[in-house]
């Protein structure tokens, strides 16, 4: 009895040691994952709902604004807090950040805030009149409502904005005026381009992978290199090459003109067509490679068996070969779609003004105007799209082990 207890204790100790070793071996990779992947993504996405710049810079004013009903003009206390805290923020050099946050709520508030901050020290009570003298905007309730909007640590305005929605003065959610609608339209373009690119890549890539899988050793190797060739050239160079080929005075137009196929040069680039061509070219390997590896694993005997059982070539392909390639096709389409949805350099370089994709806007908002809140909200939107599409395509890809994750 005691012997068996002893044995099980030994077993436990041995298996614990094994576990610790495994964890120890995994630790560096895990730490890298967290530091370089999980943490940045989480903190970035947090930005889409968390914008505390104003609230932390002006804690007392924010507290007062939070309790204000937003219906009647604020009392003198609020004006005094503005004068005190704008001045203090000016001294602490925090005003610029807070005023940027204010500007997202209402255009023009940045200059108002900076102006107020510069003159805050000289203001005397009664502060209401003094501030209106600095800028008449302080006498308007809209200004105060905007301040109230920025006073919380958390906000839904970026997420709403990404969906072309806004908070109405009554607190309800409604669509923004038509002339301000931007992002849903971009999302639609992004999804549409990604779907078309995925379908085109599948149509071109499937026969290509098939030929590669069926080819002999030497021919297979040559084809493989051709497929991987786009990876050897930088994205910018590849895209520039497409410009050279497809522009109005480009090689393709020149050749078609010389052959008399067209009467005048066709617009092949700087429009949607150019985006499709360049993106399919870049993304094709991601479809071909998983498909190829699945096709390579299908024994040649399967088609022969189908023939021996009475299936003609087309019937054998549709009933025996194609169903077995669906996992590879699913994995390839998933890869291409996820990569396509995040494209922005290629559409920016070879697309027209209507072909800019959401990632391009994210990049512009984050790097150009430093609107991290909206950029994060749009990124969140993209992530949600992928989260919806992933399980659908992923189910087909699942059987191969090529599923990403």
């Amino acid at each position: 009895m005691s012997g068996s207890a002893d044995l099980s204790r030994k077993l436990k100790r041995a298996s614990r040691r094994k576990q610790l070793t495994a964890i120890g071996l995994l630790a560096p990779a895990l730490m890298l994952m967290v530091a370089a992947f999980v943490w940045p993504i989480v903190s970035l996405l947090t930005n889409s709902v968390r914008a505390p710049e104003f609230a932390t810079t002006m804690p007392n004013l924010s507290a007062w604004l939070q309790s204000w009903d937003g219906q009647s003009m604020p009392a003198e206390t609020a004006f005094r807090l503005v004068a005190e805290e704008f001045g203090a923020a000016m001294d602490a050099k925090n005003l610029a950040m807070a005023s940027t946050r204010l500007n997202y709520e209402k255009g023009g508030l940045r200059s108002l805030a900076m102006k107020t901050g510069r003159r805050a020290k000289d203001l005397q009570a009664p502060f209401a009149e003094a501030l209106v003298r600095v800028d008449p905007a302080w006498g308007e309730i809209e200004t105060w409502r905007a301040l109230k909007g920025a006073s919380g640590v958390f906000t839904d305005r970026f997420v709403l904005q990404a969906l072309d929605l806004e908070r109405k003065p009554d607190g309800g959610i409604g669509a923004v005026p038509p002339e301000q609608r931007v992002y849903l339209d971009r999302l639609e373009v992004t999804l549409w381009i990604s779907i078309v690119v995925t379908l085109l890549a599948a149509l071109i890539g499937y026969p290509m992978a098939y030929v590669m899988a069926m080819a002999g050793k030497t021919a297979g190797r040559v084809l493989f290199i051709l497929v991987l060739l786009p990876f050897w050239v930088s994205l910018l160079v590849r895209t520039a090459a497409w410009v050279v080929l497809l522009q109005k005075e480009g090689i393709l137009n020149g050749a078609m003109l010389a052959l008399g196929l067209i009467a005048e040069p066709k617009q092949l680039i700087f429009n949607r067509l150019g985006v499709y061509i360049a993106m399919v070219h870049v993304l094709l390997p991601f479809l071909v490679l998983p498909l190829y590896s699945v096709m390579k694993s299908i024994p040649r005997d399967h088609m022969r068996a189908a023939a021996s059982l009475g299936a003609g070539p087309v019937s054998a392909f549709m009933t025996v070969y194609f169903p077995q390639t669906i996992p590879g096709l699913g994995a390839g389409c998933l890869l291409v779609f996820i990569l396509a949805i995040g494209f922005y350099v290629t559409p920016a370089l070879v697309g027209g003004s209507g072909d800019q994709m959401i990632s391009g806007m994210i990049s512009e908002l984050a790097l150009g105007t430093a609107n991290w809140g909206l950029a994060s909200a749009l990124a969140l939107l993209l992530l949600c799209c992928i989260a919806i599409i992933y399980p659908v395509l992923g189910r087909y890809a699942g059987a191969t082990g090529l599923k990403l994750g």
Partner: protein
Amino acid sequence: MEHSTKQSGAGQMSAGQMGAGQSMSAGARALVSFRRVEKTYDGRVNVVQSLDLDILRGEFLTLLGPSGSGKTTTLMMLAGFEVPTAGEILLDGRSLDSVPAHKRSMGMVFQNYALFPHMTVAENLAYPLRRRGMPKAEITAALLRALAMVKLTGLEQRYPAQLSGGQQQRVAVARALIFQPALVLMDEPLGALDKNLREQMQLELKHLHAQLGATIVYVTHDQSEALTMSNRVAVFHDGAIQQLATPEEIYERPLNSFVANFIGENNALPGRIEGMSPGMSPGLSPGLSPGISQATAPDVCRVRLDTGEIIEALRIAPATDGRTLVSIRPERMRLASTAADGANRLHATVRETIYFGDHLRLHAEVGGTPVMLKLPLAQAANFTPNAAVTLAVDTGHCRALDPRA
């Protein structure tokens, strides 16, 4: 009047068949005929060279040979997966030249089964029936019969990956038989099974053949498999049939050194033919295999072995220069019991003995040539290495063959 017309018609047909180079009886019984069929892949070496072969209706014919001997290529040409470079293959007297594989209606069992992994057992089995447009009710009935035949009832909803190797094998066999083809081709179907299962499946295939009466062409490199199951065995080597005969004939009366060595175990003693033995009649020789009548019995010749000893052997196919290898099966040699025992006596030196459970193997040397004897355990005396022994063997079991073939 009418009767005689019919007869003359039949006569013409027979004459036509005889014109094709076949005897009347073989032409009538042959289901498949290879006529001077050749196959080359590289244009230099013939993988199959000028093959003439009649496969009789209802027989179990095994194509046996080492890898690269042309047996699989022969089967693939019959199945329609390879095209002969020259010659033609006839099925029921009609050329198969322009008949694609899926219209040949031959059942085929592949080396790795080639079961369709995305289909259940039932779907795999129904595949050939559905291709033939059989009504659903009939498919279900045929399915149940087939499952019962291979003892897999109850497993119809499993996928191939959920079956053991032996079960997959049975499904593959059932799928090749379910549409009742007149001809079933098997390409090393038992190669992937372990030894016990293989022996069990050999018997089952043999019984299925007896039960169904289909013609089976079976490719293997395993001689015991060939001997167990076949009505006739065609031994392939270097793209040509070396011998085509019943298993017993192949084993007991090999026509050349290759067959003697490839089938079973063989002792080959090099020597030179010195002349005929006119006084000796092989029919009187004890131990001559039964079934050979006096008229067809080969001549007996005297062979001077390279050791200097002279033995008498059946003159089967010595080389033109008189060089020969005398082939003797290990179980046909014995220790000479008396000074006059046996027609041929050989002086040998013991090397070692190996205990085999049901018999004892004695390895010895006859003038430098290793020989092996299978001795009954009753004779298992203590042999000391390097002891001199005298071996006896009857003339009827010594076959003088061409050393180069």
